[in-house]
């Protein structure tokens, strides 16, 4: 790390390098414009009213805050997401608790395609808009939208010019000759990008840096977008690896800086991006730039952004070892792992995404999946166990009549489909409400908005919707598996007696309860019986979801991510006793895809076998989070570590979708829960991102502590 970067890091750990936002006054003529044009004009005026900030030693410029913008953002700082933000405020507020069996929050992740701005420049985007204008010249609404896009493009260019001028002005005042040259160079760069296509690595990175705040969620696919510039410059000798690293680190410091260091935003998920993965010709795409990016990032003592390494069947063992080695040594736990084959299969099979688009997916937030330039329509977390609860407590007569497990399962499936229909209905309502937002600025960075003449929130952008996952899937699977084993396969109790036990919350049924705990064939142990039930449930959900699309015609993907709110506790509180040995009102044991202490008895290979195979339809493959706790003696002993890497490689070869490893001892976790002051810097992987352990909710802390430590 150079002195320059070190100083910047020191600075942003104390305060933000972001400029103070400035308010603007309205022009009464605005009222004569269409709503869209008025919003766009005001946003442009707002941008131009802001001060240009050039942090000490900075080599790139373009930070902007939209805090005082007349069009409010959601809490992810996405400009103009007013209605999304409003839903979020009403449903995400934890003091209000869950609503029905849902905990909606209308979360939307957007992965901007910064790559097209780097490659074609704003001028190139304007050409695309003109093409669309010709195509839709008869459609008044689309023309209005596209005209707003054109104005927005000019606004970006004007802001870019303001930044360039400021650099030039500073260079005139500067007395240090070296800094003077730097400022001149920055001004020169900003006269080119992002307006015109980038011609070298420095410009390409400046373009990305400049555009990030316009849709500041994921950095996307930098090792793909920037590679050709990097390769060219290195070949020409116009850039050194060290300088490239320095610039990359400046970009990462900026991304960390737009997340407030203090307060609630200590998770890394908000700026998750991907490295590696398949290229268009089916080769492993991890390149020298990917390596430079990961090294540049992990050298910084920051926790944002975080990365997901895309493993492919062609990833050499040495590379996986190398990345896992970096991961285990990173105190901020910034690296997660996904299986490209599974993710891409999910997109192609369930969402009709062609190969050439599917390979450009980005993992975002809690390991959500979005295409580059695409949206993740998060309708929120639902209580997955609701359908089971309805089955057990309202369909007693039908269950008693059922002759075998198949007949019992049919009753459950009816309830499941009812719950999914409600899920879909509510999701559509939220989308409809969120679609009131125009989001012209964001739409420029999406794939499809300009092409279709439709804003990102009205279905213009590519994207996927959540369905059928939610919280407690493992509880459903275990419960159905136990019901099958005890009532139908081994005939230990009658259905009636099992239902009585549940109604009585196990009181007076202690022997049955202990039998279940001792001999129950819980999921995650490589038992054929429970693995079959798991496949049955995921397939039922897929059968429902694959025939449907959301309000905007987007496909559905399931979600098994723990999140970081206490969903398992909230939903557990409104769910009756379940056959897996859960008492009424208790939290669901397992969050994510996996198992907790006492239920994964057969060891890690068995757990990984079950998890790798439970979702043959790949409905959940887009978003699965599997957390495992591994004893630190395994992780830090090199001989054992080789075996751990082999373990993960085999899991991926078997079809596992995602994995993240915590190697903190249980003693440390328990101590950290008791003495948070002493463990302030302890980070653990939670839900597709890492977070300070002490910042987690108590019930999530407990859940992490309760995971089996694999030795």
């Amino acid at each position, binding site marked *: 790390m150079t002195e320059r970067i070190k100083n910047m890091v020191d600075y942003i750990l104390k305060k933000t390098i972001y400029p103070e936002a400035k308010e603007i006054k309205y022009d009464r003529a605005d009222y004569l414009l269409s709503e869209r044009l008025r919003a766009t004009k005001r946003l442009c005026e707002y941008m131009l009213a802001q001060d240009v900030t050039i942090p000490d030693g900075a080599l790139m410029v373009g930070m902007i805050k939209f805090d005082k913008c007349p069009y409010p953002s959601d809490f992810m700082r996405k400009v103009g997401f007013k209605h999304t933000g409003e839903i979020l405020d009403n449903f995400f507020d934890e003091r209000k608790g869950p609503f029905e069996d849902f905990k909606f929050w209308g979360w939307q992740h957007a992965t901007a395609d910064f790559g097209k701005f780097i490659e074609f420049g704003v001028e190139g985007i304007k050409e695309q808009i003109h093409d669309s204008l010709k195509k839709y010249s008869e459609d008044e609404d689309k023309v209005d939208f596209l005209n707003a896009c054109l104005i927005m493009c000019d606004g970006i260019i004007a802001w870019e010019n303001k930044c360039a001028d400021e650099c030039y002005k500073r260079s005139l005042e500067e007395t240090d000759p070296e800094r003077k040259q730097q400022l001149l160079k920055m001004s020169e760069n900003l006269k080119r990008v992002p307006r015109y296509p980038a011609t070298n690595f420095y410009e390409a990175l400046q373009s990305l840096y400049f555009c990030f705040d316009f849709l500041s969620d994921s950095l996307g696919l930098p090792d793909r977008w920037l590679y050709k510039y990097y390769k060219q410059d290195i070949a020409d000798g116009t850039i050194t690896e060290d300088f490239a690293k320095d610039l990359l680190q400046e970009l990462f410091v900026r991304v960390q800086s737009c997340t407030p260091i203090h307060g609630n935003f200590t998770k890394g998920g908000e700026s998750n991006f991907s490295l590696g993965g398949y290229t268009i010709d089916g080769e492993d795409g991890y390149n020298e730039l990917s390596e430079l990016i990961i090294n540049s990032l992990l050298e910084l003592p920051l926790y944002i952004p975080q990365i997901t390494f895309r493993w492919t069947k062609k990833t050499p063992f040495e590379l996986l070892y190398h990345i896992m080695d970096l991961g285990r040594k990173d105190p901020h736990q910034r690296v997660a792992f996904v299986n490209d084959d599974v993710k891409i299969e999910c997109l192609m099979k369930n969402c009709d995404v062609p190969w050439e688009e599917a390979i450009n997916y980005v993992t975002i937030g809690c390991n959500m999946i979005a295409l580059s330039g695409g949206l993740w329509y998060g309708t929120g977390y639902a209580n997955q166990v609701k359908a089971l609860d309805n089955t057990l407590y309202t369909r007693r007569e039908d269950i008693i009549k059922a002759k075998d497990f198949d007949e019992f399962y049919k009753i459950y499936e009816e309830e499941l489909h009812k719950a999914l229909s409600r899920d879909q209905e509510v999701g559509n309502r939220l989308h409809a409400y969120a679609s009131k937002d125009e989001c012209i600025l964001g739409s420029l960075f999406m794939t499809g908005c300009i092409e279709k003449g439709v804003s990102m929130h009205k279905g213009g952008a590519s994207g996927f919707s959540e369905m059928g996952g939610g919280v407690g899937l493992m509880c459903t699977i275990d419960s159905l598996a136990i019901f099958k084993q005890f009532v139908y396969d081994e005939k230990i109790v009658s259905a009636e007696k099992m239902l009585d036990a549940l109604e009585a919350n196990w009181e007076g049924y202690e022997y049955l309860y202990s039998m279940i705990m001792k001999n129950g064939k819980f999921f995650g142990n490589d038992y054929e019986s429970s693995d079959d039930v798991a496949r049955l449930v995921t397939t039922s959900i897929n059968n429902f979801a694959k025939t449907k699309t959301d309000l905007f015609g987007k496909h559905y993907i399931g979600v098994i991510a723990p999140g970081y709110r206490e969903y398992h506790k909230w939903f557990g509180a409104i769910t009756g006793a379940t056959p897996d040995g859960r008492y009424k009102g208790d939290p669901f044991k397992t969050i994510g895809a996996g198992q907790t202490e006492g239920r994964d008895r057969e060891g890690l*290979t068995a757990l990984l076998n079950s998890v790798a195979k439970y979702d043959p339809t790949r409905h959940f493959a887009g978003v699965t989070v599997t957390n495992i706790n591994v004893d630190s003696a395994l992780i830090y002993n090199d001989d054992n570590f080789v075996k751990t890497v*082999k373990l993960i490689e085999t899991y991926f070869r078997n079809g596992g979708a995602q994995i993240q490893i915590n190697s903190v001892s249980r003693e440390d976790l328990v101590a950290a829960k008791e003495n948070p002051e002493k463990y302030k810097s302890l980070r653990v992987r939670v839900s597709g991102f890492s977070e300070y352990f002490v910042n987690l909710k108590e019930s999530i802390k407990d859940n992490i502590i309760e995971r089996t430590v694999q030795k």
Partner: protein
Amino acid sequence: MKAMIFDIQRNSFVDGPGIRTTVFFKGCNLRCKWCHNPESQSFEKEILFYKSKCTGCGRCKELTVDDENFICFNDAKEICGKEYTVDEILDDVIKDKAFYETSGGGVTFSGGECMLQIDFLAEILKKCKEAGIHTAVDTAGNVPFEYFEKIMPYTDLFLYDIKSMNDEIHKEYTGATNTLILENLSKLLKSDVSVWVRIPIIPGVNDTEEEMKNIRSFLELNGYPENIELLPYHKMGEHKYSALGKTYNTFDVPNKEKIEKLKHTVVPY
């Protein structure tokens, strides 16, 4: 044909190369005073009783070792030992085949002394080989050499313990002479089968430079094994002694530096 097994452990990193499944046979003809699996010594099923967990509910009053469905609500009592057929073990072992293949692992038969159930062992080894699984046998070696000859065709690797070269010490701490053990090892090392020698390091018993030098001389004379591992004594078996009503002999736990030093003496590279 059935074997008495007390545990099948998957995802083992410590019983040979790669990721392995270890099958623990019950019954042993040594009585090593440091043994960390006291429940592995008897060939019969046993009841482990953890007194501190018992609430005195009395449900287990008439419990016998054959009571397979017995459940103690408090996990205070458990039955150790279960009979398995060859196919039952194979079904379990084969589940992790993908892990063996990527990691160069396989199955390890351990104990107790697995070679004391030799006919069963030969059969399961043969079945595993046929299934394309790498096989290892973890043995103390105190059995007739014919037993080795019987399984050598199906065994890829022997994990072979040396406890002490000094027969007096050997007798005192394991209850048996080391003559047969060392003879067998000598023959094994001269054959073309792979051998890893494993030396438990027990402070006050065999943690001396002299002992290591003697082992080294023996190996120099008979041929070096593929690998030599030093296994430091640990106390993880302590609670099981009282659960079986047996007395626990405690030793010091050797420190890392000591192990490194001893390793340096016995390992020539």
